[in-house]
């Protein structure tokens, strides 16, 4: 009689015949469309793209492959940054730019939000405003600058006007669409629970559209960063755009590049902060 222990390993028992079978090759998961990858891989790939840019940049500049007038070395940029901050008061310029973006954008949001909500809610308001606003939106903001200068001069209000016009019309239209997309079932449910036509704006439409409105705010604020530089390139006494245009006159390429990088970083910080705030405030919209 067989020992029960060895009997278990007997290949005639179906369970243990696996080693005789051929294995099928697994598909490589990262070549599968839309397949998730690990966080670690994601992060390292993201970082490596920055490193690659830095490597290529260093490679062509330190070897003098490219004239430093066109593209300075990373070291030059760092030196410029130090000079800008310590000797040329760059921090004041950054603050000036930031405050222009925020004041101009806030004005656009304060007027644009209620108007967008009304357009998205009431067809009569939509019929009146929507065509005009759509029309104006396609006019390039930068083309308005000469007019603004003519109308309101070259002082601060002109800079704010550029930001305002650049963001207001897009804000209104995008908010209107977001509000118009609030699920009809929610409105109907609210009516059968005794909501009134106006009460429903506060109790259903606004809360339902709020996460989307925050996303729109984030997006349009990103565009506002690009308009401010356009505004500051012309007749500005301060600001990052002013520094860039001054550096152009003195052929300080490294200052220009550093200015651009700073704008990018500021925009990115705004974006990330707004993203985190939205997720925290409207967690009900983003899963558990």
């Amino acid at each position, binding site marked *: 009689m067989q020992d029960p222990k060895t009997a278990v390993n007997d290949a005639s028992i179906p369970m243990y015949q696996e080693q005789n079978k051929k294995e099928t090759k697994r598909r490589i998961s990262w070549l599968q469309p839309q397949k998730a990858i690990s966080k670690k891989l994601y992060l390292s790939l993201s970082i490596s793209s920055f490193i690659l840019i830095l490597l290529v940049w260093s490679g062509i500049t330190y070897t003098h492959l490219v004239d430093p007038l066109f593209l300075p070395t990373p070291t030059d940029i760092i030196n410029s940054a130090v000079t800008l901050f310590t000797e040329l008061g760059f921090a004041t310029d950054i603050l000036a730019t930031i405050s222009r973006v925020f004041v101009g954008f806030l004005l656009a949001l304060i007027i644009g939000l209620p108007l967008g909500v009304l357009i998205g809610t009431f067809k009569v308001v939509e019929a009146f405003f929507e065509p005009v606003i759509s029309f104006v939106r396609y006019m390039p903001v930068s083309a308005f600058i000469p007019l603004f200068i003519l109308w309101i001069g070259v002082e601060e209000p002109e800079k704010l006007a550029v930001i305002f016009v650049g963001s207001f019309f897009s804000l209104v239209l995008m908010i209107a669409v977001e509000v118009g997309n609030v699920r009809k079932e929610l409105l109907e449910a609210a*009516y059968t*629970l005794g909501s009134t036509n106006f009460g429903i704006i506060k109790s259903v439409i606004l809360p339902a559209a709020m996460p989307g409105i925050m996303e729109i705010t984030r997006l349009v604020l990103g565009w506002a960063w690009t308009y401010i530089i356009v505004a500051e390139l012309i007749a500005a006494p301060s600001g990052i755009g002013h520094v860039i245009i001054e550096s152009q006159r003195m052929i300080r390429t490294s200052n220009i590049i550093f200015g651009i990088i700073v704008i990018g970083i500021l925009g990115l910080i705004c974006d990330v902060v707004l993203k985190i705030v939205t997720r925290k405030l409207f967690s009900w919209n983003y899963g558990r």
Partner: protein
Amino acid sequence: MKPKVTIQNIQKVYKGKTDVLAVDTINFDIMENEFITILGPSGCGKSTLLRMVGGLEEQTSGHIYLGDQELVGPSSNRGMVFQAYSLFPWLTIEKNIQFGLKNKGMKEADRKDISDSYIELVGLKGFEKHYPNQLSGGMKQRVAIARALANDPEILLLDEPFGALDSQTRLIMQELLLNIWEKKKKTILFITHDVEEAIFLGSRVLVMTSRPGKIKEDMPIELPHPRTYHVKSDPTFIKIKDHLTELIREESLKAIELEVQK
């Protein structure tokens, strides 16, 4: 006895390139405490009928009365439960249930008492502070029912509320709703295309024809209460089911024929 709701010569025409008659001259009364199920093939206009009773759509002609009062537009006296996606996702379960009470201007403490009792009634104790996206489909519909009931409406209108649920959950929800009706003696109008569901729940089944929707048969269901799922294997139940299945089948075939002729 006076009917609770009177539906009188209701017609609905959808205007377009060619006008479509969706609902054709419907008449019936709903008595106090009745549980009426409306059974019809898909596209027969049964949801349209319910939405007209709820005031969410307007009839082309005809009248609907609650008691002696003609109904125009939606109001909190007719609670509604939709097929899905009607909970307010930014409100917790208890705030969802309190929504109508808040509209009435009720104090917070009183609202809380009522929502607590309805959360208990639908078996969701412990989920008060959860958000809708944390719940399964069946649980969401429990909340929707509780929300409609908490407002204490004159009539409860349900538009295929269990249509999107799997069959096990559906059965449990049917028993839950029936249990609530037996306890609270509400007046209910319930739309479904599921023959078994219509018989199991209804004290009266109205069968609708395919488009344009008319009432084809008005059948009282005299199965005793309280009912449990066992009643579904009762010979009387099966007889009614065979009969209604045949009726619905005829109508569905007609609908398909019409579709093919186009």
